[in-house]
Every structure is written in structure tokens, then in C-alpha cells.
């Protein structure tokens, strides 16, 4: 492995409060030095003047669809999409088919990820066997095989007893319990946010209360048990207020928000746009404002994409029958830069923290830092580059994005995982036509 010397970039490392122009040397897969490095014998020297050099982005919430739906995404294509989006690690949710609820299933994901040689993929194991909400899965065995958290995401944990038990049992292994907060009796049949837009479209709505009731429950159970609850894809101002209250009380709670929930409102569902159908649904302008505030003050710890690929045919149907979810790995950084940094909600170092250092801390993952000796997981991006989202160029197998045609700033140049270049825009430009062919 050749050493890599990134010269002249703006190095941002929130783990060390660093934000300065410096050179970064990568050697033997590790960060070898930071500062003024003139040259290095045999190193690939890359001029990154004007670019941001940061610890690789980490996404704690993606759906890679393998095993089960390899026609919409595989671990390999998902890991490549992640790399193209600046992510050096992602956490794969267990709602696969079959469900990732045992040691062998977790091992399979680890193996596929190694073969992909792109972003790292950390499996998340199921909370309950088959995600059926009844019997606990073997957390210990799954952690032994590489799982970093447990979740029944895709489904809420309905039983408060099961959630309590999971929060208690997970403490042996020091892993978070990630919950998709939804009161299914209130949300049943809901296709979008309950409000004026749903009323106009004649679609059944899901009230904000369906999320908030479960957020409140999970917080109360976290306080009862002392376990770490991680609240997935927070979408309402009420949820933000509840988390703020919990953190003030010292409850061990962490939370994530997606780029679409800090960017789009339920208006995006107008015209029955199935690419704006997601769960939790897109909400109102006041909710977006609350989520942005929460990302600023740390009430919400991390930005996660909830990358949810679906086949064209699945979204090409009436709104009620279309599945929930959008792809997000290749637009997350651009949306963060455009919607949060350019608008002044977050500084660039704060955005890097929410997308790298904090995810590493919350899920106790390696990475999120450029300190010497750490694995060389690094992203280089151009903070000023303007680009237009074109789903046909995505590395993901799926194109279900509501952001097609949207103008964004902030474009990934290089993604380095363990000292190996896994994405390089300059060389990818040439390969992109070929890539589009393969992916239809």
C-alpha cells in the first residue's frame, strides 16, 4: 500500500478541535502525520488546496437490502454508493430477508462487506427474532460476529416490556438499542404526514403524535433501565422537545435526523410524488426548524441518511401502494452543506462532527478522527463545488430520490478507507458512463 500525502487542504477534525490548513500523511493504512509534510518517499502526493480534509463520514442508518432484495441494492453497491457519498462506514439495518437476527446472518454481512472493498459496513442485529417483537435475538452472539447495535427498524418495538428488556440486556455488550418510534395504532394506514396537504390529496395521514408517544416511552424506559436508547430518524418538533428534556435530566439518549427531514416538508408529496413518501413522513416547516436547531445545539447527535433503496416499479404506482423510503447516501453531504452550512445553521466543523465524529461516538465505532495512529478513514470534499443531483449517476442500484434536479454545493473528491482509495471523483468521471450502463 502506497503512502498518500494530501497537501494543502483545510483539515477539519472535530475530535481534536482542529480546523487548519495542513498536510495529512497516510501510511500503512493509518494516519501517520499531520502538519507540514514536505514530501514522502514513494508517496502519492495529491494537491487538495481549497478542499476540506476530514475524517470519513459515518452513516449509522442505512438499508442495503442484502440478503433478500439484491435487485434494488447489494452490500457491494451500497458500500460503493456510500464511498461516493464520502462515507467510510455505514451501519446496515437488519430488516433484510431473512432478518439479520443471528450470528451467521451478521457474519454474512461482514463477509460481503470485506469483499466489496468500499466503505466499511457494520451490521446492526435485530432486537427480536424475525423482528416479530416477541423473543430477544442473541445480542451477545451477534456482537461477537460484528454487530454494533440492535434495532427492529422498519418496525417499531410495540411491546414496552420487550423494549425494556432490550435496553437492560444490551448493557452487557455496551451497544445502543436503536428504535423506529411509531405508535402503530395511530399510524396505521398513514401514507404521509397528517395535515392540510394530506387532506387536499385525500391521503390518510400519520400524526406527529404517533412518533412522539414512542419517543416519550423510550426515554422513560431508558431512564428506568440506564440503557442507551438511540432514536432513529426524528421528524417532529415535539420529539425534539422530548429529547431536550431527557438530556437535561441526564437520560442516556441519542438521536439522529435525516437530510430529508431537515430539508423537505409534506408539500413535496404534492402531485402524489411517491419519491416523497417516507416513514416517518415529511412534516411541516416548524418541524424542519426544530430539527435544525436540535442539530445545532446537539439535542440531535447525528445526521443519518436512512438510505432506503426501492425498485423503479415499486415507486411507479399509486401513492397508497408505494413503499416508504428514499436513497440518501449520495446526497447527504451535499444537503448538509447546502441546507445547514450555507444557511448558517451549522459551521463546517459542526457538520463534520454530526456526520463523522458524533456517529462514531454514539455507536462506539472506530473512525471519526484524524489523530495519529487512527485507521486512515478520510474524506476530501470541495465545499464550494456546485452540482445538480442526477440519480442516473448514482452508484446505488436504485434511483428513488426526491432531490433529482436539485442544485447542491459540496462535492466529494476522494474517499479513503484504511489507507486505500475507494472513491476518486477524477477517475470516476471517466467510469461513470459505464457505471450508468450497468445499473440500467
Amino acid at each position, binding site marked *: 500500500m502506497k503512502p498518500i500525502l494530501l497537501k494543502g487542504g483545510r483539515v477539519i477534525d472535530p475530535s481534536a478541535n482542529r480546523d487548519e490548513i495542513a498536510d495529512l500523511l497516510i501510511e500503512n493504512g493509518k494516519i501517520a502525520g499531520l502538519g507540514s509534510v514536505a514530501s514522502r518517499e514513494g508517496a502519492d502526493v495529491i494537491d487538495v488546496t481549497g478542499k476540506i480534509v476530514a475524517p470519513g463520514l459515518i452513516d449509522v442508518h442505512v438499508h442495503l437490502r442484502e440478503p433478500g432484495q439484491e435487485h434494488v441494492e447489494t452490500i457491494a453497491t451500497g458500500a460503493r454508493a456510500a464511498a461516493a457519498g464520502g462515507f467510510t462506514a455505514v451501519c446496515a439495518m437488519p430488516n433484510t430477508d431473512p432478518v439479520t437476527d443471528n450470528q451467521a446472518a451478521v457474519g454474512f454481512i461482514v463477509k460481503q462487506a470485506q469483499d466489496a472493498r468500499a466503505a466499511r459496513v457494520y451490521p446492526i442485529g435485530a432486537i427480536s427474532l424475525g423482528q416479530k417483537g416477541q423473543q430477544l435475538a442473541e445480542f451477545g452472539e451477534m456482537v461477537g460476529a460484528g454487530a454494533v447495535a440492535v434495532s427492529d427498524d422498519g418496525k417499531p418495538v410495540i411491546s414496552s416490556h420487550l423494549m425494556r428488556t432490550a435496553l437492560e440486556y444490551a448493557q452487557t455488550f455496551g451497544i445502543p438499542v436503536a428504535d423506529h418510534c411509531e405508535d402503530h395504532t395511530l399510524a396505521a394506514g398513514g401514507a404521509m404526514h397528517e395535515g392540510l396537504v394530506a*387532506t387536499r390529496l*385525500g*391521503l390518510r395521514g400519520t400524526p406527529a403524535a404517533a412518533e412522539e408517544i414512542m419517543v416519550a416511552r423510550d426515554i422513560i424506559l431508558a431512564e428506568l433501565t440506564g440503557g442507551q436508547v438511540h432514536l432513529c430518524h426524528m421528524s417532529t418538533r415535539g420529539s425534539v422537545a422530548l429529547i431536550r428534556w431527557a438530556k437535561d435530566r441526564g437520560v442516556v439518549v441519542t438521536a439522529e435526523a435525516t437530510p430529508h427531514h431537515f430539508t423537505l416538508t409534506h408539500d413535496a408529496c404534492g402531485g402524489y410524488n411517491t419519491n416523497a413518501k417516507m416513514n416517518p413522513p415529511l412534516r411541516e416547516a416548524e418541524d424542519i426548524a426544530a430539527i435544525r436547531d436540535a442539530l445545532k445545539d446537539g439535542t440531535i447527535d447525528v445526521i443519518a441518511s436512512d438510505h432506503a433503496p426501492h425498485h423503479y416499479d415499486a415507486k411507479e404506482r399509486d401513492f*397508497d*401502494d408505494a413503499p416508504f423510503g428514499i436513497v440518501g447516501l449520495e446526497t447527504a453531504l451535499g444537503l448538509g452543506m447546502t441546507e445547514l452550512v450555507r444557511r448558517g445553521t451549522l459551521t463546517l466543523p459542526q457538520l463534520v462532527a454530526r456526520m463523522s465524529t458524533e456517529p462514531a461516538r454514539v455507536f462506539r465505532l472506530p473512525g471519526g478522527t484524524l489523530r495519529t495512529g487512527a485507521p486512515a478513514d478520510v474524506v476530501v470534499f470541495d465545499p464550494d463545488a456546485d452540482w445538480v443531483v442526477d440519480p442516473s449517476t448514482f452508484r446505488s442500484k436504485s434511483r428513488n430520490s426526491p432531490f433529482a434536479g436539485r442544485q447542491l454545493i459540496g462535492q466529494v473528491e476522494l474517499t479513503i478507507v484504511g489507507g486505500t482509495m475507494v472513491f476518486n471523483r477524477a477517475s470516476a468521471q471517466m467510469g461513470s458512463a459505464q457505471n450508468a450502463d450497468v445499473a440500467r
Partner: protein
Amino acid sequence: MALSLGKDLIGLEELSADQIRLILDTAEPFKEVSERAIKKVPTLRGKTIVNLFFESSTRTRISFEFAEKRLSADTVNVASSGSSVEKGENLVDTARNLESMRIDMVVMRHPSSGAAQFLAKRIRSNVINAGDGTHEHPTQALLDLLTIRDRLGRIEGVKVCICGDILHSRVARSNIWGLVKLGAEVAVCGPRSLMPRGIEGLGVKLFRRIEEAMEWAEVLNVLRLQLERMQAGFIPSLREYNRVFGVTVERLARASRKLLVLHPGPMNRGVEIDSRVADGEQSVILHQVTNGVAVRMAVLYLLAGGNPERAEAAKGQGSSREGAE
């Protein structure tokens, strides 16, 4: 400048007040066609219309069919109701098949909101929404508007209250759009559990009690209460619904004004409306049915590119040619 409706009729939300008035005015001469001995004009001769009903609806389908036949169109009825059809995927295939058969117009009823727009975006033929999920049922609202205009001579300033299950009603949504655009004052009344969120945002008033609504309104449009709502936990019983929200002779008599009563049908007699009201002198329910055919003729005529000024002439031309048929 000649006003037109565009390619499709999906809902009244998308129409301007002038476009709605155009349909109502165009319906006027067509009313007369249905009064003739030979109820037929050659206006749509050679046009092929498919009536595509994914949900059973005898009355709307028959009304459209009469309208089409009286305009001399060739019609095909396709009914694929309920569980035998996988509604989502099938719609794409249905659209492609229709396109291949070079049909001119599709009249569609579908259980999913947005289905009409979905189809309209994917085929070149004109699409007329005959009811999509809980979204819109524009021709029903148009015939309601025409009936109110016939009876009261105007729509602007008229106080109309729509009563019942607003949450699940496409008729309510279309009526609200149409009435508000034409300057009526609109209210809704029904159990709060059957009111959609944010309904006030559409420019309507809310009444919690039917007595208050009746005191305020000049026109009541009484919606059908689906029996499933009880099982789904929205209301406790039909009996109680009738006692609290039913439009009864006693309640009508207590109102200080003589109200006009509309119902889109089919009625649940003794639930949302008493028989004596439905069959009484304040009811205009049969007038609505008659107007339904005229309004649908007007919509078909306008979408087929008919010139509104010539609707009268088209009718005349029809009568002159009748001998030859």
C-alpha cells in the same frame, strides 16, 4: 380568449372559477337533450370511451354511460372491482394497454387517491376522474353545483353545509373546492373523529352540532355514512349517529329557514337522512340525478375539444340530423 379545460378532469382543485362556470353553462343546453323523445346528438360520433371502474358504482357508471351514449360515443365498460385486481401495479399496465388501443377518453373510478392523475400523466387520452379514493369526485360536485344554481338562481353567497364523514369523502373535497371558488360560504359538520386535519385551511367553517349547522345554512349536502366506519372505531353506532347527526324532519322543521337538501347517494335511509326528508319537498335528490347526465355530457363535450359557444348549435345540429339515424 377561448377557455378550455385542458386534457383531463382530475379535480375541481385545479380548475378556475371560470372553468367551473363554463362546465355548468355548457350543461344547460344538454339538459334539454335528455328531455327529447330521441335522446341523442352526434357530437362524439366516432369517439371511443372506456369506462374503467375499479370500484363498483352503479349510479355514477350509468350516469356516465347515458351521457356518452346520448353524445353518440362508442363505449366500453371495464369493471374490475375489489380484491381480484392488484390495484397498484395493474394501473401501469392498464394505462399501457389503453394507450395501445388508441381510445379517446377514459372515465375512471379507483379506490386509491391520486389514481386518476397517475393515469392522466401516462396516457395521451383524456382522463375523467369518476372518483379516486378519498381525493376528488369532480362530476358529482359539478352536478351538485348545477342543482344549487337551478334551485337558488346563484351560488355566490349561498351558505352550504356538507354534513357527515368528511374524512373519507371525495364528494366533500370536490364540493368544497367548487363552492369556495364560486363564492359560496361553506361549512362542514360531523363528528370530530370524521373530520380531516387542517380542513379549515380549505376555507370552510366547522360546526360540531347539526342543529347549529342547520340554523346557519341554506343548503345541506348530506353525505353517505359508510358502515365500515363503525367497525374501524370512528363512531360507536349507526343508531347514535342518526340520533346526533341525522337529518330528520323534526330538525328541519326547527330550522328558521327552509333548507334545500342534497345527497350524492346511495342513501342509508334512517342513518344520515330520514326517508321523510329524502322523499320530501325540500329534497332535490332526483334533480341531482338528472343534472348528473347533463354535467357529464358537458365535461365529455368540452374535453373532446367542443367549442362552448357551439354547444347550443351542437344540440340543434343533432336534432336536424335525427331523422337520418
